[in-house]
């Protein structure tokens, strides 16, 4: 640390740091329109000029390029500095509208007034969607720019003299309005250096330079994943969220967690007091609480709150009367549910009740649901993916002596060697995928990818082992054993590259090695085999410290949390599949489903549906009008996720607090209150608080509030056990085409669960990926509709020819049309995870 002086105040700072960051940390206002904290300075905008004593050639220096040195004397407040900034700002403003600065009514316009453009002011100024939250506007005000009257009389400014370029509004997430652009290139650098996506560039030259996406086309034609990192850094209204673009000025912010995948990125919901947008988020920004996500989120985190329209939400509770659903108040509907459950318990016994929780719920809700099962006296409690999760945990237990891995996801970006086993991590767990890309680009990490399908990670990997779906475990195991001959279907060149990386333990002995696996959500046997294989592979590379280097990424958000909270079958209880079979055979008569949707999540749709229709009572607690509404006897309307509070346990068992955006209105509709009321209605004592802190190894509430993001529910003692397991997953191959599936990036759970029209907003994934060779054989061409036929089951959808899937395989996104693909999978039997389909051209 060295001492420097800023505006006469002595400040301790680390030598070599960028001066502008230190000035900002001191709370001193400084304009800096192109600097992004943490990245190399770009020095394009020149607005961060300060006076550094003894600077050469002049004492006016850019604070973004200047580095901290001992005894620096810095002033940000001299007249000279201000004038220099004003002149720089006037150049920037020459090609940017300035009405927000110069309109003499800009602080007066209130609802009901007439604006000087003769428009009625409804609730805001109409000049610009970013009014009052624009960094350029604030910067101009900071240097007293625009403090003059009506400058447009006789003015000559290029902005008002040239026709505005065309905006791009073709996609549902991001609006690009280049007329507002000041070419600070922050978005270009954020996309490249923070996201490693590189979807943007500066195109053209001179005064016609513009931001361009991809090869100069529209945004959705480029590599853009709509994560919105460019929106966060854009100082003007050039790049904006399309939903709530004009009323996204938040009055209040609430810290929350995204539950869309198990990475658990922390976000903050912005809420507005404006009429019409009370009580819903109007904007989402990343929140730096979770050190894994830091300041980055993905398209689901940023736009998930807006994924479905109000018509697909379950805003009123419903009661089934014959084939109609009749609206009921939540109070009446809860009583009705209690009545139905009581009838089932009284006439058939408590053991005929089953409960399904969901990893999309908070840990507290899961604890309440588990307590409800205990009170009722039924051991039958699970969630759709429960058996997958438990089989992975038991594999980890066997190999490592614990399933609470101490591996920390913040290590991923520091790794020098990574093995990734997943179908498409970029789509299923974007937050981790981003850190892997970061390791590859910043740390030159060697990445080995084992995957049945092309993903964005391919280009960052040194070796891509494109395997037949379902054989990931076998491939990983062979790789761990350093077998010289590649498994069937894997290219020798790629295999040798992988062997070199996995086999050179000495070379990487001082560096971090990570093994990441994300099992599929269909077949428990494959998942447990994959977990064992990943353990074996990791043990071969890092020995008995495997638990610190192995990452298990469950599919859904709070999988760890709900499992810890007790959502698993108790002694002699029925697991998910047995509950379904029980419903068909009549040993399960009543089912309570909280937030889960087996129709979307579970294989064998026909069986699920016949089970659900066979129930005497199906009580569904959900915030969306999911496809379960066709079979439910009572639907209890729950508050949306952003209206609920609780905790979430992420993939690396980090405990995070999720807060409701509202303090009271929706509280009684929260899942936990509804479950408590059902419990109380059934005559049990539910007047108690459910808190994560009651769970083993979870932090106390005080500790978590103070150190949120850093506390994890893992054992205090490091575990050093590592036993190689025998992998007995058979190398399955099917006769026709093998169908495999996984989560898609752009489809939200809410949208898929309610089979909403809005679910595939971008429509980039509603296609089956078919290898061109297979398509030729079947006589179908790019873009046509085909029928995937598996015995009596079939689905019809458009195809996309793609070299990214191996010959003999077809990829279909699992959330396509409310989980339509699930009808091809079987809930039992060995080949449940790998249906064989014939490709038939559908008649037009």
């Amino acid at each position, binding site marked *: 640390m060295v001492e420097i002086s800023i505006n006469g105040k002595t400040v301790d700072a680390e030598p070599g740091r960028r001066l502008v960051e230190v000035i900002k940390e001191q709370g001193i206002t400084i304009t800096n329109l192109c600097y992004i904290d943490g990245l190399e300075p770009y020095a394009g905008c020149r607005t961060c000029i300060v006076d550094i004593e003894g600077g050469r050639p002049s004492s006016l220096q850019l604070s973004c390029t200047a580095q901290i040195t001992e005894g620096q004397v810095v002033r940000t407040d001299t007249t000279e500095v201000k004038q220099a900034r004003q002149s720089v700002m006037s150049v920037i403003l020459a090609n940017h509208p300035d009405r927000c600065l110069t309109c003499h009514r800009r602080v007066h316009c209130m609802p009901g007034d007439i604006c000087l453009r003769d428009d009625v002011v409804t609730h805001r100024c109409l000049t610009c969607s970013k009014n009052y939250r624009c960094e350029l506007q604030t910067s101009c005000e900071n240097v007293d720019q625009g403090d003059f009257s009506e400058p447009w009389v006789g003015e000559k400014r290029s902005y008002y003299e040239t026709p505005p370029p065309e905006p791009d509004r073709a996609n549902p997430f991001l609006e690009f309005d280049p007329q507002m652009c000041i070419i600070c290139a922050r978005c270009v650098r954020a996309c490249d250096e923070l996201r490693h996506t590189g979807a943007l*560039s500066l195109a053209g030259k001179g005064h016609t330079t513009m931001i361009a996406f991809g*090869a*100069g086309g529209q945004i959705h034609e480029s590599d853009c994943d709509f994560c919105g990192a460019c929106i966060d850094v854009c100082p003007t209204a050039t790049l904006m969220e399309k939903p709530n673009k004009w009323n996204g000025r938040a009055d209040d912010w609430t810290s929350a967690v995204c539950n869309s995948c198990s990475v658990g990125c922390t976000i903050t919901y912005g809420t507005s007091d404006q009429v019409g947008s009370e009580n819903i988020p109007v904007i989402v920004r990343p929140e730096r609480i979770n050190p894994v996500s830091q300041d980055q989120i993905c398209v689901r985190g940023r736009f998930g709150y807006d994924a479905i329209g109000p018509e697909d939400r379950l805003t009123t509770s419903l009661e089934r009367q014959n084939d109609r659903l009749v609206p009921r108040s939540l109070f009446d509907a809860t009583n009705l549910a209690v009545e139905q459950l009581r009838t089932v318990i009284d006439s058939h016994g408590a053991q005929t009740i089953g409960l399904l929780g969901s990893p999309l719920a908070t840990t507290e809700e899961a604890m309440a649901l588990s307590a409800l099962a205990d009170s009722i006296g039924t051991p039958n409690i699970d969630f759709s993916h429960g058996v997958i999760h438990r089989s992975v945990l038991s594999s980890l237990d066997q190999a490592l002596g614990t399933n609470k891995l101490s591996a920390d996801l913040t290590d991923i970006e520091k790794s020098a060697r990574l093995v990734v086993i997943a179908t498409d991590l970029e789509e299923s767990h974007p937050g981790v995928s981003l850190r892997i890309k970061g390791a590859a680009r910043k740390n030159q990490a060697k990445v080995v990818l084992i995957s049945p399908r092309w993903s964005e990670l391919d280009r960052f990997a040194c070796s891509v082992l494109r395997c037949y779906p379902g054989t990931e475990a076998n491939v990983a195991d062979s790789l761990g054993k350093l077998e010289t001959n590649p498994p069937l279907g894997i290219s020798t060149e790629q295999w040798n590259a992988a062997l070199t990386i996995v086999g050179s333990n000495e070379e990487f002995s001082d560096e971090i090695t990570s093994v990441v696996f994300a099992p599929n959500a269909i077949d428990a046997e494959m998942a447990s085999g994959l977990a064992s294989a990943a353990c074996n592979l990791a043990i071969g590379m890092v020995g008995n410290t495997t638990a610190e280097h192995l990452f298990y990424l469950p599919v859904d958000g709070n999988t760890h949390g709900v499992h810890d909270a007790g959502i698993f079958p108790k002694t002699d209880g029925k697991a998910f599949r047995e509950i379904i079979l029980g419903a068909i055979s009549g040993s399960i008569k009543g089912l309570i489903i909280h937030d889960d949707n087996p129709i979307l999540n579970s294989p064998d749709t026909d069986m699920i549906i016949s089970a659900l229709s066979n129930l005497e009572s199906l009580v569904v607690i959900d915030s969306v009008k999911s496809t379960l509404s066709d079979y439910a006897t009572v639907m209890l309307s729950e508050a949306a996720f952003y209206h609920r509070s609780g905790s979430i346990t992420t993939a690396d068992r980090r405990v995070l607090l999720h807060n409701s955006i509202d303090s009271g209105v929706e509280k009684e509709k929260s899942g936990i209150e509804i479950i408590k009321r059902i419990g109380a209605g059934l005559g049990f004592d539910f007047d108690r608080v459910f808190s994560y802190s009651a769970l083993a190894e979870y932090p106390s509430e005080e500790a978590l509030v103070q150190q949120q993001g850093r506390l994890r529910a893992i054992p205090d003692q490091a575990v050093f056990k590592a036993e190689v397991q025998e992998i007995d997953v058979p190398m399955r191959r099917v006769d026709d085409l093998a169908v495999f599936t996984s989560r898609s990036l752009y489809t939200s759970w809410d949208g898929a669960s309610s089979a909403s029209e809005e679910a595939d907003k971008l429509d980039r994934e509603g296609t089956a990926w078919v290898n061109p060779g297979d398509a030729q054989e079947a006589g179908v061409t790019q873009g046509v509709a085909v029928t995937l036929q598996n015995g009596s089951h079939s689905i019809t959808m458009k195809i996309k020819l793609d070299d990214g899937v191996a010959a003999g395989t077809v990829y279909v996104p699992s959330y396509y049309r409310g989980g339509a693909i699930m009808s091809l999978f079987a809930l039992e039997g060995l080949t449940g995870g790998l249906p064989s389909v014939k490709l038939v051209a559908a008649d037009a």
Partner: protein
Amino acid sequence: MPLETESTLRIRSIIKDFKPNNGDLLAALYAVQHEMGYLSKEALAVIADQFKMFTAEVYGMASFYEEYRFDPPAKTTIRWCSGPACRTRNSAGIRDAILATLDLNETGEQTEDGQCSVVVGQCNGTCELAPMIWVEEHKTYELPVGKLTAAKSIKLARGLRSGSGIGEILNG
């Protein structure tokens, strides 16, 4: 993943000898434009793939240079010399006459039927021909036509627009 097609394979074969981090990008872009007539989005993606760059980076780089085209060229391109010698001999009037005849608003545009386009060219020193243009057909010929008058240029533009061969126009 982009699908490998006949045209991507053709682009790959054009640029197969160029390497990343070797100062080859401009040459590769030139080679593809010379062969294909322009840089399609597909071509930019293939080049990016070979050079281990992002497509947007390649586009950003290529768009800096006037010579690279991102749309298919017209059948015949009129390259209008913007040099000072031509200017002193009323080349601006020649340009306006050609643009008006072809029903175009400014240089860089092409006629709706794709027959003709007008682009800005740079002086190559043959100022004895001022005011001059070059009439080009991609990979076929590049013909300087000099000592233009308004009448001559209108006749030429009309001929090209109706699809007559350049020889026919100049000799007829």
